[in-house]
């Protein structure tokens, strides 16, 4: 698409931009834990840094979707031909932005709101993502992030069971929908992911272990895990 800078149609740009927001959020969480939740390290990012990083990637992705939407509705050859058809790689990029990049990034922002105690703002964002999940228009990776958010939300507030069960459900669907080659790695990560720590405790531990057991099979050699 000639109207857009080249990097905006490069999927790796969104991967990196998402990673920036995600790793800043991870760094923030880890720094808070190290300092007992009272303060963060001097060089550690602030919640504002995380929000800015999320804003960058979401705004860019939405801009690209808007440009493609206009382009897709325009008829070619003075209206004689139908609307422009996108190439397979363009369709793939748009799907990536819509089902993965935007919801996953927004969930980072929602989690950060929880971290700073603004549960209402976090829930506002999460509600729209839950609706998208109910439509079946979330990628397995966004569903994993939704599970992380729900697990974090179950740490505070009075809806522990609601969030815990929602987290387990999202995790289950996410693992089921993941590419078989990536499923084992994702399941292994879920076993140690700090944001899912709540699911590894009572009353969710048993259900969590059962879910994980379905997707992890230890090879006899012990060299690596494989997907079921």
């Amino acid at each position, binding site marked *: 698409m000639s109207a857009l800078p080249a*990097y905006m149609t*490069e999927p*790796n*740009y969104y991967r*990196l931009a998402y990673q920036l927001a*995600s*790793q800043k959020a*991870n760094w923030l969480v880890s720094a808070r834990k190290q300092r007992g939740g009272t303060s963060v390290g001097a060089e550690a990012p602030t919640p504002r840094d995380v929000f800015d990083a999320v804003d960058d990637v979401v705004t860019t992705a939405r801009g690209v979707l808007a440009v493609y939407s206009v382009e897709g509705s325009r008829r070619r050859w003075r209206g004689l031909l139908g609307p422009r058809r996108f190439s397979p790689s363009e369709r793939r990029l748009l799907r990536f932005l819509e089902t993965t990049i935007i919801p996953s990034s927004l969930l980072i922002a929602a989690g950060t709101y929880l971290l700073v105690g603004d549960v209402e703002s976090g829930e506002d964002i999460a509600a729209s993502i839950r609706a998208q999940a109910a439509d079946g228009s979330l990628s397995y990776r966004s569903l994993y992030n939704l599970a992380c958010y729900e697990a974090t939300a179950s740490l505070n507030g009075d809806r522990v069971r609601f969030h815990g069960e929602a987290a387990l459900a999202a995790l289950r669907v996410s693992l089921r929908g993941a590419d078989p*080659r990536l499923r084992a790695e994702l399941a292994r990560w879920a076993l140690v992911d700090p944001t899912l720590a709540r699911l590894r405790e009572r009353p969710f531990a048993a259900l969590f272990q059962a879910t994980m057991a379905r997707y992890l099979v230890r090879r006899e050699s012990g060299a690596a895990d494989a997907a079921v």
Partner: protein
Amino acid sequence: MTRAAVVLALVVAGSLGAASAVGSTGPARPASCAVSDALAGAGAAAEARAAYVALVPARATRGCAVRGLLRLTRAPRKRRLCENGDDQYDAGRLDAARRAYSSLPPGTACADIGLSAIRELARLCVKGKVERDLGRESDATAAFAAALEKNPDARCARAGIAASRRPFWLKRWLDAFARWAPEALAALGIVLGASFLLLLLAYIPSVYRASVGWRVVGRILGPRLEVGKIAEPSSDITVGSALASRMKEFLRRFHDESLGSSVDYDLDTGTAGEEFAEIVSGSGRLQNALEKVRDASDHTKLVAFIVDLLYAALPIPRFVASGVCDPSEVNAASATLMLENNGRLAAAVTLSTPADGSAPTAADYLDLAMPGAVWVQYEVARLLGSGEVAPGVAESAALVREGLTLQQEGRATEARRAYEEAIEKNPRNWPAWVNLASVAARLEHDFPAAVEVVEEGLHELVEQAGAE
């Protein structure tokens, strides 16, 4: 009869009388039946009858008066009935006309003539139907046409012609096609010949790169890659076919990962997205078809030969990868692979597994499939890009694939090393940046390092993209 008609008749009769008076040169002639005839002609039957009766006593006018009276008493009745039948006949209603004529007294001449015409029409229509039932369409059409000539409004004839109209159209189209087919085929031949000549322009590299992106041209001139035979290392280990098949499988997977629309992008890891050759086997559909055509007859042999020749003349990059599994003289499996581009050796490489002190097995040779496929893929990309893909870029992308395997096995340090080396060889290998950050965060839990890698990669990406 109205008064106006009577007056008109008298005026006509008067003018006729005057004309005869002016025209005559002799003594005045006795009054004729002109006035009575005019009245009868105008339909004033009663007045005309009275006038004729008045003329009967006179000898000179008796004859015409008597004839006039006879006409008044007989003719109108006969004429009116035949007119009715004639009207029905003219309107094409044969049954009604037949009834009208039949109601006339026997021997009425006009009724006999009318009935005869109706019988002839009915005969022609029946003949048309019978001919159609027998499948003789042209005879049927001729019969209906003859009926129409006799009475253009005859309903049975019109219906018969209407029923035969559609086949007429089809026949006309077929006739037209048969007439124009030679010219159309010649025109098609000219178009195909011109297209072939245009395709030959793709021998110019810049024209090839510009045109191969178009869907139709791309399908014809798109690169072909065939993984050929790989010779066995020894008579004990037969692994050549399996190695070739596994390389094909890897190449297909790389192709799908980079170009397939059905597979979604993964968020955390990136795969290389270079230019890939379409993988085809040596016995494509076209070649199979040509083989069958060749077997049909001597003429088709010639046609197949010409098509083969033209196909071979097209500027299609045809790559063939083949190789030899080296005999196990050392304690490692190794294979030498070669890549031919349109029959010329374009690249060669020797790949080997790490030596572990034991004699290599078939499984060790099969471990060469992945690096072999990566090598083939990037040599093809390099050759297609006319040198734009430097050897370092190919190696960098191969390192990303190796790093992904290590990452999936949880070997963080080795994966990190592979990605760092990949970035060193090609800083624009964006998947390497993504995967390096992913390793730092997920496997090493070093978030500050991950942020640093990502920021550097993003900076590089936006800078490079802006410079392009």
